[in-house]
């Protein structure tokens, strides 16, 4: 079986994240985003690739949204209300609370300001959100009988989550956007060590390694401070949620410390309303913010007030948060047109701007003029500060996560092609994990894990728990040569490799069963068949004088059985190393080999031709079990070589 991964968006680009994973018959859509840089059909993922007939309910098991950014959720109302998907949708509580604000904001920008035909209405957004099931972090959600999903903290924005999905024995993680270092209001991403077949990771900063965040925050604050002391206006274009709150905490705190009186504005009631959500959802922020909530909720900003359109051209310095980020239109663009031509002013840009937006144009080079649309050109004389802190993880973070999870395969999405390919190379060479970075609309297939389920018997389980100690001295060779006792410098090493040895029984009608060898026959109702080996070996009594020979011949049967065996024991001990030889009266025992003096002249086990007189030889009858066959052959060849001496002093 295989896991098929269809990348509908954010393949070798940033924007319209959407990956459809088909795992053991369950089809999960991760994220349903829109592309900010396109204004035509390309802004949405190509949903027709999921189902040509448009019957999405039967072709998708569920949709999972990782966070409320438009490039992850922007197409959701369109997909549910216009395309008609009615199945389950999962997202975290904050995402469910904040996504409608985000979508409504976008809809307004699209319709009211840009004058486009609307893709979905406010009612659509409301209806869409009703279909959403909110989940908590680490909560295991049983989507249906086979599909299990779980959210992990991703730290990218409030409520951002990585999602784990498991069907049968196969499991994957889709990270969404994540941040491996904690920031002022959010913690770092956290995940359990999981057995994964596939990790789908973002790779926005696939090649960048970033230094301390505090230095970069300092730069930002200094730039803003310098601008307002010179009487300039600061425009901070952000999306309503996430970055706005983070910068706001930063500025509010700085204003407090520096006793600044310059007003900080939020462009619409929107962001202030969002702050209410942040206050209720404070459990999803960083530990520091959480701990302080009883004394003062960090999202009760002291210096922030809402902005009125008439204040755009009011004299005096101010700081303004305006939506949308990247200056892709709307109010931030309007303010930009007014403020950009003045040198005193400052515009801060986020670390990443989608191609095609004004923000992107400002970032590339130092333009003096910018075309905001077909017939408007704006002179840019103001200062530009690019925020270099981003809530995305850097290359080290990605590598750390991949290494920590050690999945069998990695798929990279949400990044620019050259960076992704570089990162892909690193993952393969440094971690030895096969990775892919498919383009949009490409499918990657990887094998999935599957276990055979069997019942294990209690006896076998008990046996498996038995300690199986092995001792070894690190350099025993030298020691045995020189001395007697191992020196403390060479400690005894103890191994306890517990081995399970069982027998697997596969019955067509019943469930597979694994049992211990001892209970196996009982289970079958069969009787063990004992396989034994026997050989009666002749050993000549050579090199003896006649006189003694007769004497010995007379005496031998009466007294010397034990002596023969004793003699043999001595010989065997010399020939065979490391074997425990036991003399047990009438026979010698070496493992399962039993050797006794054979007095039966018609012994059936005397296979070899006897060319010696009865009195010239003594017979040793050996029997053994299959396990000791090689050893037994060794013993026999030793016996054959023997020329037993009856020297009485040796015989004792």
């Amino acid at each position: 079986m295989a896991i098929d991964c269809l990348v509908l968006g954010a393949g070798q680009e940033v924007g319209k994240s959407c990956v459809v994973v088909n795992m053991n018959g369950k089809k999960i859509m991760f994220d349903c985003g829109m592309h900010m840089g396109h204004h035509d059909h390309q802004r949405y993922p190509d949903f027709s690739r999921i189902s040509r007939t448009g019957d999405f309910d039967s072709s998708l098991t569920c949709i999972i949204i990782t966070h409320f950014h438009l490039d992850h959720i922007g197409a959701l109302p369109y997909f549910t209300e216009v395309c008609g998907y009615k199945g389950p949708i999962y997202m975290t509580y904050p995402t469910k609370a904040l996504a409608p604000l985000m979508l409504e904001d976008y809809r307004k920008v699209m319709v009211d300001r840009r004058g486009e035909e609307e893709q979905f209405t406010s009612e659509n957004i409301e209806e869409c959100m009703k279909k959403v099931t909110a989940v908590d972090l680490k909560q295991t959600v049983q989507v249906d009988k086979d599909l299990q999903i779980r959210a992990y903290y991703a730290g990218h924005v409030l409520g951002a989550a990585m999602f784990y999905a498991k069907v049968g024995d196969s499991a994957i993680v889709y990270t969404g956007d994540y941040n491996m270092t904690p920031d002022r209001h959010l913690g770092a991403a956290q995940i359990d060590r999981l057995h994964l077949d596939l990790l789908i990771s973002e790779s926005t900063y696939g090649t960048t390694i970033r230094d301390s965040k505090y230095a970069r925050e300092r730069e930002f604050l200094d730039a803003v401070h310098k601008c307002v002391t010179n009487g300039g206006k600061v425009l901070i274009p952000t999306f309503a949620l996430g970055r706005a709150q983070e910068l706001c905490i930063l500025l509010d705190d700085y204003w407090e410390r520096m006793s600044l009186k310059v007003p900080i504005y939020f462009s619409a009631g929107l962001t202030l309303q969002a702050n209410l959500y942040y206050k209720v959802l404070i459990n999803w922020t960083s530990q520091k913010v959480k701990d302080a909530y009883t004394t003062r909720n960090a999202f009760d900003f002291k210096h922030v007030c809402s902005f009125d359109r008439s204040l755009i051209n009011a004299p005096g310095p101010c700081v303004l948060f305006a939506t949308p980020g990247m200056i892709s239109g709307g109010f931030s663009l309007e303010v930009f047109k007014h403020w950009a031509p003045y040198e005193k002013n400052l515009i801060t840009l986020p670390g990443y701007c989608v191609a095609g937006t004004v923000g992107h144009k400002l970032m590339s080079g130092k333009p003096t003029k910018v075309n905001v649309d077909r017939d408007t050109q704006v002179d840019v004389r103001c200062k530009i500060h690019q925020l270099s802190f981003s809530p995305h993880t850097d290359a080290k973070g990605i590598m750390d996560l991949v290494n920590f999870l050690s999945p069998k395969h990695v798929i990279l999405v949400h990044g620019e092609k050259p960076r992704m390919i570089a990162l892909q190379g690193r993952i393969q060479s440094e971690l030895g994990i096969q990775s892919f970075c498919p383009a949009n609309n490409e499918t990657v297939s990887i094998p999935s894990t599957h276990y055979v389920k069997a019942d294990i018997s209690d006896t076998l389980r008990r046996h498996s728990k038995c300690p199986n100690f092995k001792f070894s001295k690190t350099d025993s060779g030298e020691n045995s040569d020189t001395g007697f006792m191992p020196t403390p410098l060479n400690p005894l090493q103890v191994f306890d490799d517990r081995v399970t040895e069982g027998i697997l029984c596969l019955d067509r009608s019943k469930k597979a069963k694994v049992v211990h060898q001892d209970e196996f026959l009982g289970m079958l109702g069969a009787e063990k068949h004992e396989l034994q080996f026997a050989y009666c070996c002749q050993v000549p009594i050579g090199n003896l004088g006649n006189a003694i020979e007769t004497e010995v011949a007379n005496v031998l049967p009466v007294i010397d059985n034990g002596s023969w065996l004793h003699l043999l024991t001595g010989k065997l001990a010399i020939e065979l190393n490391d074997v425990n030889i036991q003399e047990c009266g009438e026979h010698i025992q070496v493992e399962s080999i039993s050797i006794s003096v054979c007095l039966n002249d018609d012994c059936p086990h005397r296979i070899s031709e006897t060319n010696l007189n009865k009195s010239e030889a003594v017979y040793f009858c050996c029997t053994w079990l299959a396990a000791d066959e090689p050893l037994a052959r060794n013993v026999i060849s030793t016996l054959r070589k023997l020329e037993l001496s009856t020297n009485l002093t040796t015989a004792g």
Partner: protein
Amino acid sequence: MRLTSLSQGKGFYFPPCQILNICGLRVLFDCPLDLSGLSIFSPIGFDEEEYKVSSCNELRESECLDRKRQKVEKPLDASNLIHSEPYYKTVNDLHLWNASFIDVVVISSYMGMLGLPFLTRQKGFSAKIYATEATARLGKLMMEDLVAMHAEFRQLYGPGESGCTQWMKWEELDMLSSVIKDIVIGKDGTELGSWMPLYSAADVMDCMQKVQALKYAEEACYNGTLLIMALSSGLEIGTCNWTICGPKGTVSYLSSSCFVSSTSMDFDYHGFQGSDMIIYSDFTTWKSGNDVDDYSSYSAPSTSKLSDFSEDDWKVRAESLLKLDEGEEEVEKLSFLCTCCIDSIKSGGSVVIPIGRLGIILQLLEQIADSLEASNIKAPIFVISYVADELLAYTNIIPEWLCKQRQERMYSGQSLFGHVDLLKNKRLRLFPTLHSLELLKSWEEPCVVFCPHWSMRLGPAVHLLRRWCGDPNSLLIMEDGEDTELAFLPFKPMTIKVLQCSFLSGIKQYIPTFNTSISLKYFPEKETLCIPKVKTASELNIAADLTMQILSKNLKHKETSIARLKGSLLLEHGKQHLIFQKNQEASSQTKSLLHWGKLDPKDLLVSLQKMGINGYVEQENSDTESESLTIMHISEPRKALIEMKGTNTVISTDDEDMTALICEAISSNLDCI
């Protein structure tokens, strides 16, 4: 599996306490305190009684004894109560267990947590404690509140008292009235040892550090063996039922549960699907029903095989239960309480509400405020508790733990509970203690006061009740207790109106109307019940790609194939895996084969002939008919001999290759592995 019921509990404030031995691990369910036992102590500030006792001490001892003995027969009065720093009654039978032998503690509700510091501070305690995040947080607040209230009490007696506990001496106990004595030493006289002086704030801190907080439906893995999951029980914020999944099956623990809830998250029935056994410790049903008293009243069905139920089954069942009008009843109850409140306030009396249930408090806060506003009354509402601030702030940041309606409030941009707005408008005020300066400044009567403690022996409730107990216009709203007579003793004579009500604290309907295939067992208190194994074998996962590599062999005359497995057994997340070593094939070769069955000499001869080995069979009848000895003489290519007797075969050759060939022939004629 063995289940020991240590205590069947006494409803919401004293949940049951049980120990389950599963997979060789001991799991303790809840560790509560029986705070109703506090009623045997005299509350602080009752100086007259103090005086009486001291004057009694001045009398000749024998006379005093006589007087007290006589009292036993007389009706109880306040002087019968124990005048001492209160001790706290823990679960008696828990002391019989060595704390270091407990492996896991799971806490279902904040009430089930109050005795935990007693356990965690014991030497050798090393168990892992699991509780939901909300339970842990609220439990901590409750414990801190208890410690603070107790400290207030302690000021009266001074620190010296703690060393010698006069009242626990036998001669003193003998003098107690029978009602109190029963509470102290129990009906069978064994419970004196369960009384403990309260833990300290440091003990609470220490205890909380050992608690692992979980989300609902978060999988926590203990020791690789048990997967432990908390599922919403709907009773209170953060309360939960448990499913414990081990290699030998899944056990669900049903604590007191509610199908209807207007604050906490709804009852989660999904987790019970696939359970092999349910431990049913919700005893509300048996409390009310008389017919069940035959089962010594605390019985619970367990070992219910529920795997057969489909999801729909559960859904239907749960929904049918949800339809019960319990919810409406609760709503009516609350609105009736509000009306009573308003009536009291209108007539100039105040209302004191010493209820310990957070969910009820939060709802009453909202509804009383609404009613007051609707009737245009400006009476203030106070919440007086050491933890009031934190408690109310906390309840407003936990949408994940609340019911759908509350979550909807968040989505629509409102605060989760009405008290946030009330605090903003200053219609609700929070104070840590009665004697805080702020409170004195803003105090006005009539007013509505929510304050601990429901036992009426600790906290602001004692003082307020004393202040208002003589006022027929005032109102006391309290929960139905076991012995209200005893609780009111120090406040008598009382003319204050008392409204006692009971709130839902468990499933009212007897749920298991299940199929007959379910076996029910009842577990009485203080006994250990052995539960037969649900499964005889446990499940093992073998990686499929590896099983392909194993050479399996078909058995003769049977549709079974067999193969030897060798690897190491790994227990992870409650599942067993067999991990193969890379070099296992080489090592398995040296192992000798296991043969079974009987040999047919003729078949063997045929097989041997195919290999170019020739010989003849010689039948030799031995003494017994069944065990006849057959000898096969081999002449070519070398001389050899095979003796066959029943399931025993002896091969005699002088050459290794020959032996190998004969063995091969035998193996092909016998079943072997």
